[in-house]
């Protein structure tokens, strides 16, 4: 980590979050560097990585295989081929092995899929109907947020509106419904309806390819912590920053498979990248914005309780009230339920020692998740600062001022009352 010189060169910041800005300028995270915070965020990264290993496989399965199935009742029943599908960046035979860990589905995921919470081997459809399964609805809610906030991914969306995309989608739709005159007839009558669904599926692919990278990153962070090689919150953040750069150029694409035939709806040759077309839009759409969720709390848009502009939405995890509302959106109750199944023992013990113990573990792990996502957001902020601005130890005061302006601008977004930045500074927030 570079030694920051900002505090020696610049006068102290007068921002409401001046302490946190000075911490960022010193190479730190928005999350305070305490052993408890480190334990919490690493534990939750591991618990998140297991369902995420299912989410990315499921998203790619739906975008590449289920596609426009008009009755997709089995879309969450991903095939063995997708459970065995080698992660492109982990495993012995990876195209480019950046992270250690195995290529196919994680053993804890396979065990949960077989036995569920019931701990009994039952047919897949019984686990499904009993809702004893991974909540793919969470992954779809994230995808939907990325799809709906259409101002944050301009190049990707421009391509979805291009003639080239329409032609590719047309070819894919015709191939998929070959020999199905009823669906081809409907397509002829309502071409835009089908095209809109394909665009949505392109976002399934986008998010699947994004999470394919994040799952092994989080597994490796957990392993490093267990081995005593990740010892501080800034080290955890720096691991994420390096990961963001290492994988920034990964292609984002959308392929459809009909049998063994591949139809390129978004070819890799379009040049879309993991950082620009997936990671940054994901953070904006999911961490910050999402949308008002359906649950126990109602919003009155006429009374101004919902911003008139989508860019001002603030329903992401960084703002979430973690009272569980049974929603796939944010606060992500379904994700919290998924993570509950894969908590490391040390987090289970920690939660039992605080507040209501096992009775409110979901809330406690939700708060932990919030802490961990403030750390991921810090990594994104530091990565953007590295990419677009200047080193923290830059000798030029003008450059340090530019860095400070950037940090202050980023933290301005947490001045609204719903933001949890102030809360996560305290260990008592659980």
């Amino acid at each position: 980590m570079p030694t920051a010189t900002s505090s020696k060169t610049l006068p102290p910041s007068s921002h409401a979050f001046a302490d946190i800005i000075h911490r960022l300028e010193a190479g730190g995270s928005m999350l305070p560097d305490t052993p408890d915070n480190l334990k919490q965020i690493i534990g939750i990264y591991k618990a998140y990585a297991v369902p995420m290993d299912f989410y990315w496989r499921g998203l790619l399965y739906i975008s590449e295989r289920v596609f426009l199935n008009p009755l997709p009742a089995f879309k969450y029943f991903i095939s063995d081929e997708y459970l065995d599908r080698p992660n492109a960046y982990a495993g012995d035979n990876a195209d480019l092995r950046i992270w250690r860990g195995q290529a196919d589905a994680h053993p804890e995921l396979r065990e949960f899929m077989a036995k569920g919470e019931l701990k009994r081997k039952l047919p897949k459809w019984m686990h499904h109907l009993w809702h004893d399964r991974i909540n793919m609805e969470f992954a779809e809610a994230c995808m939907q947020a990325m799809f709906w906030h259409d101002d944050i991914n301009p190049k990707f969306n421009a391509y979805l509106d291009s003639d080239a995309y329409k032609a590719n989608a047309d070819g894919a739709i015709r191939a998929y419904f070959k020999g199905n005159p009823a669906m081809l007839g409907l397509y002829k009558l309502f071409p835009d309806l089908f095209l809109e669904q394909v665009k949505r599926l392109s976002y399934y692919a986008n998010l699947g390819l994004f999470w394919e990278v994040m799952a092994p990153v989080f597994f490796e962070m957990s392993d490093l912590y267990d081995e005593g090689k990740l010892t501080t919150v800034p080290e955890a953040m720096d691991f994420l920053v390096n990961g963001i750069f290492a994988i920034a150029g990964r292609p984002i694409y959308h392929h459809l498979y009909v049998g063994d035939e591949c139809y390129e709806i978004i070819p890799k040759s379009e040049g879309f990248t993991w950082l620009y077309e997936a990671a940054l839009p994901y953070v904006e759409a999911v961490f910050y914005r999402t949308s008002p969720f359906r649950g126990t709390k109602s919003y009155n848009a006429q009374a101004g309780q919902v911003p008139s502009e989508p860019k001002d939405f603030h329903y992401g995890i960084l703002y979430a009230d973690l009272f569980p509302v049974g929603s796939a959106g944010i606060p992500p109750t379904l994700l919290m339920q998924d993570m509950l199944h894969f908590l490391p023992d040390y987090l289970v013990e920690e939660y039992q020692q605080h507040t209501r113990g096992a009775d409110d573990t979901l809330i406690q792990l939700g708060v932990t998740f919030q802490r961990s996502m403030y750390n991921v957001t810090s990594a994104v902020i530091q990565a953007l600062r590295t990419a677009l601005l200047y080193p923290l130890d830059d000798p030029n005061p003008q450059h340090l001022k530019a860095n400070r302006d950037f940090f202050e601008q980023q933290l301005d977004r947490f001045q609204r009352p719903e933001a949890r930045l102030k809360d996560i500074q305290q260990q008592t927030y659980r």
Partner: protein
Amino acid sequence: MANIVEIATNTEGFSTLVAAVQAAGLVEALATGGPFTVFAPHDDAFAALPPGTVQTLVDNPPQLARILKYHVVADKLFQADWSISQTLTSLEGSPIPIRAALEVKNASVIAADIEADNGVIHVIDRVLLMG
């Protein structure tokens, strides 16, 4: 006079850039097209990127080409031709802001105005990234 690719190939300190241009399939375009202004990152600039960054890009030529095109402007611009607060438009389509004298976005120009047959090269100390 030599073209942009010949100058980069025959000058010390650009082996990574030349390899990247080859991997991205941009040699012919930069050798015969133009006029171009190329902001050429020195080898040290590529080396300063976190491990794996360059390798992932080299393995994916269309994505690498996009990053490299962000270093090219479709015009022959000497340093005297641009001014502070001006924004140049890269071949990739994204803007390149000029924030200070002898700087291009967040990179410093360490050697300016190297003229080629089909444009001009400015050597910079950082790899430029869109955004």
